[in-house]
C-alpha cells in the first residue's frame, strides 16, 4: 500500500496559540532547553510558529505561520548528508536516522525553511519528567540533527493496526500531535494517494501556496492563504 503523507495549514484559522508546538514537544521527546539557550538561538521546536509584524506600533498586527518540516519531494537536505542520515522513504516522508548522523550540520544549512534543529548538548529530563518520555521513539544524544517526522511513530502504529485488521487506513485516522491538538483545526493531515481524503481536496484549493516555492523543493506542506479582512 503506497502512501503520500501531506499536511495543509489553513492560515485563516491559525491564531498563533502555539498549542501545536507544545503537543509536538510532548509527543516527540523534545527537550525544553531553557531561557538562556533559547536566547542563543538554540530552540529545539520541531514545529515553530513564525510571527511577522505587519505594521509598526500602535496599529501593529501579527501574522502567524506554523512551520513544520515541509517534507520536500526534492529535499535539499537529503543530497548533502555525507552519511545518508536523512533519506526519502517510500511514504514520501523525509526520514531521519539519528544513529547514522555524525553532526556535520550541512543538512541544516541547506534547508531553506530552517526546520532542522541540532542537539547542542545531552539534554536531561529531571525526575519525574522522565516519565513523560514516549517509548515509541528515542532520546537523541548530543551531536545529532533532528526534525519533524510527521509523527512517523503514529503513522507506523496506524499502519500496523490497519494491516492487522486487514483494512485500508481511514482518512483522518493518522493524526500527528500538532494536527490532533490544534484548537481551531488549522492543521489537516492525510494521504495524497487517497483521492477522497480531505488533504487531496485541500491540495487543489485555489488559496493554496507553498513557502519559498521558487526554490523548487516541492514541499508536501501546503498553506491556505489568509483572506484579508476575514475576522480580526
Amino acid at each position, binding site marked *: 500500500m503506497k502512501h503520500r503523507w501531506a499536511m495543509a495549514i489553513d492560515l485563516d484559522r491559525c491564531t498563533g496559540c502555539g498549542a501545536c508546538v507544545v503537543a509536538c514537544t510532548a509527543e516527540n521527546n523534545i527537550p525544553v532547553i531553557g531561557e538562556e539557550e533559547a536566547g542563543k538561538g*538554540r530552540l529545539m521546536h520541531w514545529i515553530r510558529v513564525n510571527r511577522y509584524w505587519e505594521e509598526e506600533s500602535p496599529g501593529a498586527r501579527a501574522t502567524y505561520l506554523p512551520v513544520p518540516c515541509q517534507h520536500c519531494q526534492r529535499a535539499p537536505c537529503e543530497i*548533502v548528508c*555525507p*552519511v545518508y542520515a536523512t533519506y526519502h522513504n517510500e511514504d514520501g516522508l523525509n526520514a531521519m536516522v539519528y544513529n547514522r548522523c555524525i553532526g556535520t550540520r550541512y543538512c541544516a544549512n541547506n534547508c*531553506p525553511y530552517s526546520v532542522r534543529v541540532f542537539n547542542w548538548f545531552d539534554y536531561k529530563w529531571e525526575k519525574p519528567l522522565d516519565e513523560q518520555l514516549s517509548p515509541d521513539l528515542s532520546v537523541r544524544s*548530543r551531536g545529532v540533527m533532528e526534525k519533524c517526522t510527521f509523527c512517523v511513530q503514529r503513522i507506523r502504529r496506524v499502519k500496523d493496526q490497519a494491516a492487522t485488521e486487514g483494512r485500508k487506513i481511514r482518512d483522518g485516522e493518522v493524526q500527528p500531535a500538532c494536527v490532533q491538538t490544534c484548537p481551531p483545526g488549522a492543521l489537516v493531515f492525510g494521504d495524497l494517494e487517497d483521492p477522497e481524503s480531505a488533504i487531496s481536496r485541500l491540495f487543489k484549493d485555489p488559496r493554496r501556496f507553498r513557502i519559498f516555492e521558487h526554490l523548487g523543493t516541492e514541499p508536501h506542506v501546503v498553506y491556505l492563504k489568509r483572506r484579508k479582512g476575514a475576522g480580526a
Partner: protein
Amino acid sequence: MSGENHLARTDEAQLYRDLSRSNLVTTWRWFAGVGVLSLVLLWGIGVFVYMMMTGMGVTGLNRPVFWGILIVNFVFWIGLSHSGTLISAILRLTHATWRAPILRAAEAMTAFSLMVGGLFPLIHLGRNWRFYYTIPYPNERGLWPNMRSPLMWDAVAINTYLIGSLTFLYVGMIPDLAILRDKSDGWRRKLYSILSLGFRGTHAEWRRYHRASTLFAILIIPVAVSVHSIVSWDFAMAKVPGWHSTIFAPYFVVGAIFSGIAGVVLVMAAIRRVFRLERVLTPLHFDNLGKLLCTMSLIWGYFYFTEFLTVWYNRNPEEWEVFSSYGRSFLPVFLLMIMCNFVIPFPMLCMKKVRRSIPAIAFASLLIVVGMYCERILIVTASLARRNDPFIWHNYFPTWVELSITAASFAMFGLLYMIFSKIFPIMAISDIKERLFHTTERSFGGASAETIARVEEGEEEGGA
C-alpha cells in the same frame, strides 16, 4: 670560452653551512618556541576534548548559523595551502629561476597548512567519534557514504592534495637529503640515508629526477585548483543566499592563491630573520612576490566587485538581505576586509620601495592574511545569519572554545614548521646551486649583466 659560472666561484662548503644553519645550530630560542607552541596546542586539544564530551553547545553556533569559526578556519588553512603549489609548480613550469630560495619553505607551508586545515572537518563534527562513517570501506552497517555530498568530494580531494603535496615536498627534498646525508653523522646520517633512498647525483638519476619534478608540477596544479573549487562547492551547492553563486569556484581559488602568496611572504620574512639568510633571500625575491601579490589583490577585488554588482543590481530579496547586512550588522568585519585586502595593500604593493622593503611587504602580507580571514567570516557566517526566513535570523559570535581551537591550529602549524626546519633542509640547496651553476656574467658593451642559461632537453654536446 664560457664565462666562469657563479657556482664555480662559490665556496660550496660555506654555502651549505649558510643554508643549513637551521639544521646545524640549535639555540635555546628554538626550544622556547617549541615549548610555547606545544603548550598552546595542548590547551587547544584539551578544549577540543571538552567540546567533544560536552557537546557543540559550548561554541557560539546556533540556528541558523550552524557553521562558524571552525569552518572559517578550514577554508582559511586550505586556502593558505595554495602557496607552495604556486611557487613550486607554476614558477617551475614558467622557468622563473628566482623561485629557488623560496621553494622548500613554500612547499612545506602547503603540506602543513593542509594537515592543519584537514583536521577541521573532523573537529567541527557533532559526533566526531563516528567520523569513520564517511570512510568508504566494506562494513556491517549496510551503508556506503553518500558521494553526492560536497563533503565527500572534500574528503577525496583534500586527501589527494595532501598526499600529492607531501610527495611533492619529499621528492623535492631528495637531492638535498643526499647532501645532508653525506655531511652529517649519528642519528641524522641514518635518517637521511633512509630518506634519500641512496640518491647520488649520477647523470641518469638527474635526468629522471628532472622529469619526475616536472611531472609533479604539471599534476599538482590541477589538483590544487580542483581542491579549492571543491571546498567552495561546499557553499555553492547549498540553497543559502549569498552562497549559491557560480562564481564561487574561481573566486575561492583566486582568494586562496592571494592568501597563499601573502603567507609565503610572511614565512620567508620570518625565516630570513631567524636563520640569517639575508644574502639568499634578497629584496629581489620579495619584489617579485610583491608583484604577484599586487596582481592577486587586483584580481580578488575584481571578483568581489563582480559578485557584489550582480546581487546589488538585481536586488533579489533573499540575496540582497545578506549583502545589505554587510553594511549594518557586519559592517566592522566588512570594512576590515576591504581595507586589509585591497584599499591598503594594493597601493602599497604598487610601489617598488614597499616591495623591496621587507618590513613593509611583510606588513602588507599580514594585512592580507587578516583580510582574507575576515572575508571567509563574512561568507560563512553572514550568509547564514541572514538567510531565507527572517523569523530565525540570529547573529553569531565565537566563544572561548572556538578561539582556543583556532589559536591551537596556528600553534600546530608553527610547531610543524619549527620541527621541520630543524630536521629537514629549509632551503632548497640543490636548486640554489643549480641556479648558480647556470648563472654567468655577460658584458654588454660597458655594462655587465647576470645571464642565466636555460638548457632544453635534446641539445647535443656544446650546450651551455
